[in-house]
């Protein structure tokens, strides 16, 4: 039992369970999943489907944070990806399946370039990650507007919208894509040395360099990966509404992603990371967003609850707060002993 409690995922999973219980109490039909038109349908499936963009962005963010970095530009990159894809689809044969594939590939290619740019600033020029990615965060939405010419571009392409609202084998495509990326990331980082090298760079960049780890390449890789994930998330968000609004697509998704990573137990100080934790964190955030309107609070107020979660999680992780609690806990025992 103690071993189970000591596992780092216990608290995030417990928090998720508590949220689900609150939902069931509020709406008893919350767990109902039924078949309709040949695919699964229900609140839980919605949560899974809606969590795809945050999960994708958070996966990239996990690796970046593990190298002691942070990527603030992912929201802007998502907007650029959506803008590039939609503009391309509108510009050529709009309904064709091939168009959607070429558009998505082009968008992801642009994202790789943007990731290379972030990586260049951080790894080569040695600028603090928060500032280096701030540049793209500020300029990125401007670039996306430049691509869409400031318009809300609407597209009409079946294959493209399937990316968000389609179903394969009764399961939503968006969720499958996110889980696929999750699986691949877990495989590559945990079954090869890459994960260990990333952790090494995050724990002590200087020592890992002396040990022969090519920190520069690794940092570059994680920023490209983060940008790629963000691009994929941007495509899913754009496909969900069949349109792109460069101003609002993926707004604040970087903050949600960072929150997911923090909830999952990955320390912002770099080093050890947990992909499963990030998965739980992303599910937690999406469930939270669903819970707020469910219990009768305006859905916009979810920021308030996110703030409470951030502070709670940080306090739980903070050694100072733990020390303060630890000193206080044995105190009653001593008092009891003195009385008896």
């Amino acid at each position, binding site marked *: 039992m103690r071993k189970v409690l000591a596992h780092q995922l216990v608290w995030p999973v417990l928090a998720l369970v508590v949220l689900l219980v609150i939902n069931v109490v509020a709406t008893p039909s919350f767990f109902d999943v039924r078949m309709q038109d040949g695919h699964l349908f229900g609140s839980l499936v919605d949560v899974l489907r809606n969590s795809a963009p945050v999960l994708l962005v958070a996966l990239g963010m996990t690796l970046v944070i593990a190298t002691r970095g*942070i990527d603030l530009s992912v929201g802007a990159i998502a907007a650029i990806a959506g803008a590039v894809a939609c503009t391309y689809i509108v510009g050529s044969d709009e309904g064709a399946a091939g168009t959607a594939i070429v558009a998505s590939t082009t968008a992801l290619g642009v994202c790789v370039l943007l990731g290379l740019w972030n990586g260049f600033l951080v790894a080569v*020029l*040695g*600028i*603090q990650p*928060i*500032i*280096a990615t*701030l*540049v*793209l*965060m*500020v*300029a*990125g*939405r*401007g*670039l996306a*507007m*430049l691509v869409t*010419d*400031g318009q809300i571009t609407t597209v009409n392409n079946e294959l493209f919208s399937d990316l968000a609202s389609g179903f394969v084998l009764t399961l939503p495509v968006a969720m499958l894509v996110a889980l696929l990326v999750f699986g691949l990331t877990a495989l590559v980082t945990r079954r090869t040395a890459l994960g260990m090298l990333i952790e090494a760079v995050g724990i002590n960049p200087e020592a890992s360099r002396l040990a022969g780890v090519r920190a520069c390449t690794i940092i570059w890789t994680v920023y490209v990966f983060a940008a790629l994930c963000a691009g994929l998330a941007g495509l899913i968000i754009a496909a969900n509404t069949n349109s792109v609004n*460069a101003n609002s697509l993926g*707004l604040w998704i970087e*903050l949600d992603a*960072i*929150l997911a990573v*923090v909830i999952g137990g990955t320390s*912002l*100080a770099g080093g050890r990371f947990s992909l499963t934790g990030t998965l739980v964190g992303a599910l937690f955030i999406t469930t939270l967003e669903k819970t707020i309107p469910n219990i009768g609070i*305006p859905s*916009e*107020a*979810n*920021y*308030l*609850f*996110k*703030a*409470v979660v*951030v*502070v709670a999680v*940080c*306090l739980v992780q*903070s*050694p*100072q*707060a733990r020390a303060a609690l630890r000193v206080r806990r044995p105190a009653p025992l001593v008092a009891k002993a003195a009385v008896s």
Partner: protein
Amino acid sequence: MSTATVPVAGVSAWDRVRGFRPPSRYLPVLATFALFVGLFGVGGLRYEGFADPQVFLSLLLDNAFLIVLAVGMTFVILTGGIDLSVGSVVALSTMIAAKTLDMGWSPYLAMASVLVVGAVLGTLMGLLIHYFDIQPFVATLAGMFLARGLTYLISVESISISDSTFSQVAFSTITLPGGYYTTWTVVVALVAVAVAAYVLARTRFGRTVYAIGGSESSAMLMGLRVAAVKVGVYTISGFCAALGGLLFAFYTLSGNSLHAVGMELDAIAAVVIGGTLLTGGRGLVVGSMLGVLVLGTIQTFISFDGTLSSWWTRITIGLLVLVFVVIQRVMTRRQS
């Protein structure tokens, strides 16, 4: 200044002017000033009516709230921290002002409550950052969510401000010699800059801010009051954000939960362009004001041009931040 005081035999005045090197800590601010003058000069040459002093005054008028935000942000960044919450606090301030006036509070009570809420929020973040060792980025992120969430909780809809005191302050102008005019909000912003410059340069608190930015552990070992000052800068930033929010409320005469989205980025960009080192310890509050003016000039430029679209503002700001960050990086690398 000191180089030009005592005349030395055999050195002509021109030699002294030519040999004058401004102290290196003023260099970034001078660069920003040159950039501002240059931008304004180019605008004056290209567009008719750009070089009019009233354009400059409007620049101050339209950006008064941002100047106040940048002042608070400068304190935080000088200690090596960052404050992401200021945009949301601006929105919260406009909302509190609008709601309390709507409920029939006296305008002075409304203003006071806005300022108190801002300062308390800032203090709370400062306490989290200092005593629980939570990164400034994360703690102020929580503050950002909290303030935005509170704003939505007060009202999802926009509330307009119709109080007579507020509209009086918003619309009354000060006529300057030559027929030019400005508003009280500009005066408030300039006073904020002056007070901040004095505090940073001439008080123990201000010097400790620089010391913490240089090296926190050294400052601690020197016996400086690190805890009080570190929490204090976030209080100041929160207060400035609330004050900026009030100015924004005067400017827009409404409280809206969608006000000031992303304004923290503008404030950070202004501070960076103003020459403050993002790692802390170096920078001047006057630079941040110049940074805001540069941002404002770019906007004026684009509105004067008419053919350029508004999104070029963001792209240009991003580029400017990049240039200044890279220059900072090169300069600090050379020194170390």
